[in-house]
């Protein structure tokens, strides 16, 4: 088979309608963004308003998602927490994704010394259990959104680097890569136009899982008391506060969990759709 034909025979872009799941994801994302921006105007109560007489009330017309042990409205707090959790989830994924993909691609494509160097750093970081690394970092520099994001980046980029490097290694061997090389494309064109687009989808699928994973890591930090300081509304912290009351007031921990679920579902749908699109375009 001729080289040109080999290139041509890679699957042609299929024209597709907007997938329903992607559409749903976009709608849900719009909801999240609106809530994140306008929580203060939508929420029926201020998220920090306490009231002893209103403590531990189950969901009702007055308090849609019930109240917590301080008598705070859980619905208002779930809404108010959206912004901070999206911030942590998105930034805590974006930075590791960019850093890890770039370094992973370089390592996989360049090989040699660059590969050895990058992968040794990866080995050192990956050698520390993720949560342990994050805990140690946050314990050292203190909690708060920015520090949690930095901690997630330090601990998280290595996963992307390994994944992308592995994919690049595979892609490098594929016939169409040989073909592009024979066609005289430049190294950077081969890497960025041909190899990377094919290596990215698995990383993107992983990134989408990571957004939620990072929200959950932030939750774990809140759970261990190392994340955002109370009484700031944050889903993870709310769940850890509600854990004490799981048996008699299940809604306190459950509702932020459901909000997490909603956000996670959003990014999963988006990620699935996006990865399909990317795969089609890349090949």
């Amino acid at each position: 088979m001729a080289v040109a034909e080999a290139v041509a025979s890679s699957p042609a872009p299929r024209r597709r309608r907007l997938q329903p799941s992607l559409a749903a994801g976009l709608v849900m994302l719009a909801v999240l963004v609106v809530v994140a921006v306008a929580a203060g105007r939508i929420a029926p109560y201020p998220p920090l308003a306490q009231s002893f007489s209103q403590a531990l009330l189950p969901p009702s017309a007055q308090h849609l998602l019930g109240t917590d042990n301080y008598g705070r409205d859980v619905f208002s707090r779930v809404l108010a927490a959206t912004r901070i959790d999206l911030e942590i989830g998105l930034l805590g994924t974006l930075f590791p994704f960019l850093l890890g993909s770039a370094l992973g691609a370089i390592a996989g494509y360049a090989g040699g010394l660059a590969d050895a160097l990058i992968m040794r750093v990866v080995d050192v970081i990956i050698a520390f259990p993720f949560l342990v690394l994050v805990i140690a970092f946050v314990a050292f520099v203190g909690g708060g959104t920015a520090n949690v994001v930095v901690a997630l980046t330090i601990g998280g980029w290595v996963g992307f680097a390994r994944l992308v490097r592995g994919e690049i290694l595979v892609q490098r061997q594929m016939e169409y890569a040989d073909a592009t090389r024979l066609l005289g494309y430049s190294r950077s064109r081969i890497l960025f136009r041909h190899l990377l687009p094919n290596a990215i989808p698995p990383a993107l699928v992983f990134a989408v899982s990571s957004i939620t994973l990072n929200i959950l890591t932030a939750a774990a930090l809140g759970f261990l008391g190392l994340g955002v300081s109370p009484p700031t509304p944050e889903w993870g912290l709310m769940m850890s506060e509600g854990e004490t009351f799981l048996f008699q007031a299940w809604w306190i921990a459950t509702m932020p969990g459901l909000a997490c679920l909603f956000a996670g579902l959003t990014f999963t749908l988006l990620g699935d759709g996006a990865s399909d699109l990317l795969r089609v375009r890349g090949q």
Partner: protein
Amino acid sequence: MKQLQYAARRIVQMIPVLVLVTIVSFFLLKLLPGDPAAMVLGDKASDAAIAAFRHQLGLDQPLLAQYLLYVQHLATGNLGTSIIYRTPVMELMGPRAEVTGFLVVYSMVLGILIAVPLAFAAALHRDGWPDQLVRVVTTIPLVSPTFWIGLLLLLVFSVKLHWLPATGFGESFADHLVHLFLPALTLSLSFAALLARNLRAAILDALGRTFVDFARAKGLPRRVILYRHVLRAALVSIVTIVGLQLSFAIGGAVVTETVFALPGLGTWMEQSIFARDYQVVQSLTFIFAAGTIVINLLTDLTYSVLDPRVTVD
């Protein structure tokens, strides 16, 4: 042969990485505010008593001297003595490692058993109802906090239904399987979901790739294509995610072990960091590090065995 050479080279490369790990873990810990002597002796201890205890532990020595002593001990297989428990780390570690090891392996087995059929069902019925169902089902564990799932499982299966014991490790292998079922299931769900998704993508990827097309063009039966190429691609995916997951497992184990009151390495590590039990944290970090590096090496070697297109050099 080539793979053996490669393995040998990687093992040699481990040494500088491990040295780096000891340096980072040692100095990072010492940078953290907090003093194990103050934690052991309590708030009532006088400054003099704390100073005396620090001297006894050698914590008043220059950092470099402490580091060299630690490395020297490590080189001779001496993991030191827990400051909190006044007991050799080695002695404390055995039973805890057994719990965590059992838990992690158990959860991986459960995870693979759950994920593989789901992923194949989804991929082979792409965009059909099995695919949508798997997509929804695998979302739930990925977006729920581990402790929350664990507690719900406990509530339902132990408290309400009395099917399984609430906590504990049990005394025999069969006992372990029963006692650790809920914790292993809790730990496995997010792993299974991640794996199922990745596996689905990998299978689709493999199905769509040119080499599959080539194979199809050569007139191989569809079944052979599936087995030879897709299964191979799937195994690469499993190996990758298992390799990744192992380094996450110890973190996940912290939460899971806490909820199910399991005396494993995860909770021990957490406790040791919070109490600044330097020896324990350093030793555990080193062991995790060495273990992870070996796992990564095995992952890479498995790649090259599974996928001849990957060269190991």
